[in-house]
C-alpha cells in the first residue's frame, strides 16, 4: 500500500490486516492496521514496526520513500508483538548497529522477546532526540497498556505518537478522523473497554499531567486504525469519560441457556428494565463475543448475569466471561444474578460471589427457577428488572 504523508516529511508506512477477525481473543469485525511512522529529516527515524508476517510489506512501504539503510534510528514505543514482531527483519535491513530507542522496561521486555543483541538505547522519561528540523520527546506511559509503553511526541508539529492508546481495530483506506463516520468511535470504545479499562485511573492521571504541562496536541497517531487530526480533543475527552466510568441508564444482561429457561428469564428481566426507561442489551454468551459484551458493559450501570446450573456449577461460558470481566476491573456497577436449574441450583449463588468479588453492588439476592419458568416466575423476573431499573 502506498505510504501516506501525514505531515511534511512524515509518512505512515504501516500495513492493513484486512482479514484478521480474532485479535488475541478479541473480535475484530473491521480487521485492523499496524501503523508505523517514518520521519524523514536530516536524520531519519522509524517509529514502531508491525506484526512479523507483515515485515516485508513494511520494508516495501519504507523503500517507496527511502532506502531502509538510510534510517538512523528505530523507536519502539511498545514491545507487544503486533508492533515488535517485525523488528528483527527491520533491524536487519536498517543495520544491526543502528540505535533502537525504547523505554527502560522496553529494553528489558524486548530482550525477553528477541535473542538478538540490538543496540538498545533506553530513554529517560522526557529525553529528547534532535533529527534536524524536528525534535522528538519521549514520555513513559507505563501500563498503558504494558510496562514498556511510551509515547513519542514531535515538538514542532505537535504530533503525539501514542502507541496503542487512542487506537481502534479498523482497516481502511481512510487514514484520518475526518474521512470516516461516527462508527469509528464504537471501534475506539471497544478498544478502550478491552485493553485500557483496567488502567483507567492511570489514564486520568496522565491526562491531568499532560494538561498541567500545557502540552499542545495537534495530531494523535496511534498504532492501530485512523489518525486523529481534525479533532484530537474528541478522543482525549472520550478517554476521560470512559476512564471515569460514568454510566447512563443502561443495563447489560449477560447469560447462557440450555433449554431456553434462563433465556426466558433474561427476556422478562429485560422487559422490567425497559419499563423503567432503561436501555437494555440482553447478550447470549455463545452468540456474542466477549469483547463485544465488554464494550456494552463499559457504559452500563447494571450488569445482570444469568446461568443455568450444570453439574452443580456454572455453565462453562460463564467461567470464560466472568474471568475476563474480572481482569478488566469495571467500576461503579450494580448487579444481580438469575438462572434456571434442575435439582440443585447453585448458579445464582456462584454468580453472586463472583460479582461481589468484583465489588459490584448486588441489589437483589437473585431469582432462580426450577426447570421452566411459569407465569409467576416470569413475573418475579420482571420485578427484578424493575427493581434494578429503580436502583439506577
Amino acid at each position, binding site marked *: 500500500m502506498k505510504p501516506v504523508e501525514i505531515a511534511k516529511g512524515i509518512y505512515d508506512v504501516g500495513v492493513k490486516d484486512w482479514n484478521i477477525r480474532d485479535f488475541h481473543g478479541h473480535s475484530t469485525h473491521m480487521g485492523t492496521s499496524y501503523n508505523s511512522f517514518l520521519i524523514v529529516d536530516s536524520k531519519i527515524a522509524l517509529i514502531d514496526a508491525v506484526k512479523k508476517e507483515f515485515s516485508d510489506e513494511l520494508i516495501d512501504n519504507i523503500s517507496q520513500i527511502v532506502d531502509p539503510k538510510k534510517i538512523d534510528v528505530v523507536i519502539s514505543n511498545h514491545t507487544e508483538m503486533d508492533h515488535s514482531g517485525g523488528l528483527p527483519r527491520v533491524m536487519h535491513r536498517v543495520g544491526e548497529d543502528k540505535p533502537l530507542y525504547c523505554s527502560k*522496561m522496553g529494553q528489558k521486555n524486548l530482550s525477553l522477546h528477541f535473542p538478538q543483541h540490538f543496540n538498545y538505547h533506553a530513554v529517560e522519561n522526557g529525553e529528547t532526540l534532535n533529527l534536524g528540523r524536528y525534535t522528538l520527546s519521549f514520555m*513513559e506511559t*507505563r*501500563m498503558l497498556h504494558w*510496562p514498556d509503553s511510551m509515547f513519542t511526541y514531535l515538538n514542532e508539529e505537535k504530533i503525539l505518537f501514542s502507541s496503542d492508546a487512542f487506537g481502534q481495530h479498523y482497516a481502511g483506506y481512510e487514514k484520518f478522523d475526518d474521512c470516516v463516520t461516527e462508527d469509528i468511535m464504537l471501534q475506539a470504545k471497544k478498544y478502550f473497554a478491552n485493553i485500557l479499562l483496567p*488502567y483507567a485511573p*492511570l489514564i486520568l492521571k496522565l491526562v491531568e499531567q499532560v494538561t498541567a504541562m500545557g502540552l499542545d496536541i495537534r495530531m494523535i497517531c496511534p498504532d492501530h486504525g485512523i489518525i486523529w487530526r481534525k479533532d484530537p480533543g474528541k478522543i482525549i475527552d472520550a478517554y476521560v469519560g470512559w476512564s471515569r466510568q460514568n454510566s447512563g441508564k443502561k443495563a447489560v444482561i449477560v447469560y447462557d441457556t440450555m433449554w431456553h429457561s434462563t433465556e426466558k428469564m433474561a427476556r422478562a428481566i429485560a422487559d422490567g428494565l425497559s419499563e423503567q426507561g432503561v436501555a437494555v442489551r440482553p447478550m447470549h454468551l455463545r452468540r456474542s463475543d466477549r469483547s463485544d459484551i465488554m464494550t456494552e458493559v463499559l457504559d452500563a450501570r447494571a450488569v445482570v448475569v444469568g446461568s443455568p446450573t450444570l453439574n452443580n456449577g456454572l455453565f462453562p461460558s460463564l467461567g470464560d466471561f466472568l474471568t475476563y470481566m474480572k481482569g478488566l476491573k469495571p467500576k461503579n456497577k450494580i448487579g444481580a444474578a438469575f438462572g434456571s436449574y434442575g435439582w440443585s441450583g447453585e448458579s445464582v449463588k456462584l454468580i453472586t460471589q463472583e460479582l461481589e468479588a468484583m465489588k459490584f453492588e448486588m441489589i437483589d439476592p437473585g431469582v432462580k427457577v426450577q426447570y421452566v419458568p411459569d407465569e409467576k416466575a416470569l413475573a418475579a423476573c420482571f420485578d427484578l428488572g424493575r427493581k434494578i431499573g429503580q436502583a439506577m
Partner: protein
Amino acid sequence: MDRYVCTVCGYVYDPAVGDPDSGIKPGTPFEDIPDSWECPICGASKSDFEKE
C-alpha cells in the same frame, strides 16, 4: 513480614527478596522502604500497594 501487592500491575513485594535493582536489600520490611520507591514493573508509587 508481610508481602505487598501493587494494585496497578499485580507485582508482589516480598521482603525476603527485596528489590535489589532499586537498592532495596533482601530482608527489608515494606514499611522501611523509602516513600520515593516505585513499583519495579509499572512505576506505581508505594501508596498504590496493598497488604497481600
